[in-house]
């Protein structure tokens, strides 16, 4: 099971300096930091694209961008946020925190870890480069549906290669996470006792390993259709564009949970800490997370209710989708039960975690609405869908990431962030997030289609509200950046255990976490959710 002997880890206390430290990084903390900074940069890039979209949609008619460019903006916004921001951010957090939380000296394959990060910048460079090639970037939407993706210009080829590279990167990252969790837990850290964040990362990693190759297969078929005379998706050659949708969404739906499960894990660490109570229903949380993972493979065609599926298939996918609401509901109720009668305090991580529960649940409920095939036929491809997935991805994944960064910032850096700026960041984000995305529900219900640069006049007011909200939301993220940069230099020195209720393993380490932590594994006595009852030994150096 877990390990004791760690002589395999080079006992080098030296710490490379300058650019070598980052380019040749094998330390999980360095790689984690690289991931997080990279993800934040990509979040800003994707955010600027989003603001371009919202600027164009502030008024009906064409103001700033021609429809061709507008389509490229929506496509690249989606691809960058999904593959460049959210997924790397979660991988980065797992890199930083997992070894500390389960008592491992580092990730299992340190050099592969280096590779999986350093593949990301070239992939994103390819994506951004595609804006300036003839024909522009991919403009088929982030789903890259055939036949559009088969017909577009060379920007599409760059996108396909970028996705191949991103896929390899995230598969390597995921393999590292699985092996670390399965093989490198400290003695006493049992599977059914480890922190929920570790469980969520483990299941997410398995999902990535299972579905990223399917996406690679799908885009490879698009590539061969484009250049090598095959006809997988080309109706003119006996192929079928609907086939693309099936292959894509077989990847695409688990991908949704790849972006949601780690968020569940983070919230399951933060809520108990600030409620000063153990996580309610730990075992049911583990099983709920696992069953969401399994069910996510059986619901893909609910993205395709309007493709002319037989009614039987529609019913199957509809009921299977609704079924996912059950384990998700178990989690939400468990978080609420954890807070119930807890001695709560509302520091920034807790605020973001509670904001997550509130808004993610709204997004989850609009998801259940969309799962009804008869309703989806009306709402498919409308702004209602845009509102839905931004509630689960922005208020879900992104808020949980903010929560995590504020929560672990003291342990990572040894400094406290500014609580005032943190709270301002939360309330600002909460307000403007809702101003941006709540009106989109109404727009969708009223029939406004997504991915269009121009719209009918009656949609004007709600679009203007959303655009103002988006710009304010975007501005608010600079508060976060300022807070981080300021606190890195001038923040107060953090205590080893800055949170009274923080009792998982990472809080047993000195602050900031030593460069080489747990080079000798500790003997642990652990309760559920990674709560450390007793710890013996464990050396850092």
């Amino acid at each position, binding site marked *: 099971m877990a390990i004791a*002997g*760690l002589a395999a880890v080079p006992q080098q206390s030296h710490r490379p300096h300058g650019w070598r430290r980052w380019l040749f990084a094998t330390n999980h903390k360095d790689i984690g930091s690289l991931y997080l900074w990279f993800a934040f940069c990509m979040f800003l890039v994707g955010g600027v694209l989003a603001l371009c979209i919202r600027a164009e949609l502030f008024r009906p008619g064409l103001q700033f961008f021609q429809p061709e460019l507008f389509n490229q903006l929506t496509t690249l916004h989606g691809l960058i946020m999904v593959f460049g921001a959210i997924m790397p951010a979660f991988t980065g957090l797992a890199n930083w925190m997992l070894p500390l939380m389960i008592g491992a000296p580092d990730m299992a*394959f340190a050099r592969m870890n280096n590779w999986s990060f350093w593949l990301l910048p070239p992939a994103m460079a390819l994506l951004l480069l595609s804006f300036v090639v003839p024909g522009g970037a991919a403009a088929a939407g982030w789903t890259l549906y055939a036949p559009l993706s088969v017909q577009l210009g060379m920007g599409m080829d760059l996108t396909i290669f970028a996705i191949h590279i991103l896929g390899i990167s995230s598969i390597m990252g995921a393999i590292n996470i*699985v092996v670390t969790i*399965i*093989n490198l837990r400290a003695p006493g850290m049992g599977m059914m006792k480890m922190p929920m964040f570790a469980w969520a990362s483990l299941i997410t990693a398995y999902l990535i*390993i299972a579905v990223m190759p399917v996406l690679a297969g*799908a885009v490879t078929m698009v590539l061969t259709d484009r250049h090598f005379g095959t006809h997988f998706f080309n109706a003119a050659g006996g192929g079928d564009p609907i086939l693309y949708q099936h292959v894509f969404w077989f990847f695409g739906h688990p991908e949704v949970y790849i972006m949601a499960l780690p968020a569940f894990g983070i919230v399951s660490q933060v809520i108990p800490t600030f409620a000063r109570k153990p996580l309610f229903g730990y075992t049911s949380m583990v099983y709920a997370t696992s069953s969401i993972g399994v069910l996510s493979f059986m619901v893909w065609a609910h993205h395709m209710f309007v493709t002319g599926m037989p009614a039987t298939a529609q019913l199957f996918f509809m009921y299977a989708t609704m079924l996912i609401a059950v384990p998700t509901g178990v989690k939400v109720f468990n978080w609420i039960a954890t807070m119930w009668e807890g001695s709560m305090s509302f520091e920034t991580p807790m605020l973001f975690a509670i904001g997550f529960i509130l808004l993610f649940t709204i997004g989850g409920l609009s998801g259940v609405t969309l799962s009804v095939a008869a309703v989806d036929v009306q709402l498919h491809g409308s702004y209602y869908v845009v509102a839905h997935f931004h509630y689960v991805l922005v208020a879900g994944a992104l808020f949980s990431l903010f929560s995590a960064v504020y929560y672990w910032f003291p342990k990572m850096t040894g400094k406290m962030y500014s609580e005032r700026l943190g709270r301002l960041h939360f309330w600002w984000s909460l307000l403007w997030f809702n101003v941006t995305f709540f009106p989109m529900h109404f727009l969708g219900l009223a029939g406004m289609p997504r991915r269009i640069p121009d719209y009918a006049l009656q949609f004007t007011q709600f679009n203007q509200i959303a655009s103002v909200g988006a710009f304010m939301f975007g501005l608010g993220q600079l508060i976060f950046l300022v807070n981080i940069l300021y606190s890195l230099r001038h923040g107060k020195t953090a205590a080893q255990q800055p949170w009274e209720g923080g009792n998982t393993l990472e809080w047993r380490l000195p602050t900031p976490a030593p460069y080489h932590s747990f080079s000798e594994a500790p003997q642990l006595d652990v309760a559920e959710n990674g709560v450390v009852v007793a710890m013996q030994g464990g050396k850092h150096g």
Partner: protein
Amino acid sequence: MASGMQAANLTLLRRLLLLVLLMFGFAWGLVPLYRVICEVTGLNRVVVADAMPGRDAAQVAARPVVLQLDAMVQPGLPWQVRPLQSRLQVKTGQFIQLQYELRNNSRQQVVGQAIPRYLPAEAAAYVKKLECFCLRQQLFQPGETRRFPVVLVIDRALPAAIDSITLSYSVFDVPQGEARP
């Protein structure tokens, strides 16, 4: 101890890589699987020979309908397709004969498959084709031009709201390996 750890890590690594390969293969396996499912369930069966309209349809009086004819070819395909008449004034229940001309503009022997489309779409169920080049794949010699008769009857049960039907054929290329003309 340490090398045992290393070995355990590598074993797990190999298993996970195998899973990656399997799932990559699975994506390609979806292609034949999809074809089989479509064949078994008849989902993609677009062209089926129609039966004659039912007896009770004869109870409904015949009425005039405008039949417009059209044809489409995807860019990059060698066909040239045109109906010999583009607009016909017909009656429901009447045998209608019309002609399409297809030309293979390429220097190769090609096999084509025509797919009919109707506008409005609900008219499809009422247009009964008794003879049509779309019912099978057609072999064309290089540069060959052929005329095909189409015989159809519009069912008298056609909803009253429809007074004009557009029939449009798209002609597709059948890849060499899959042709069964």
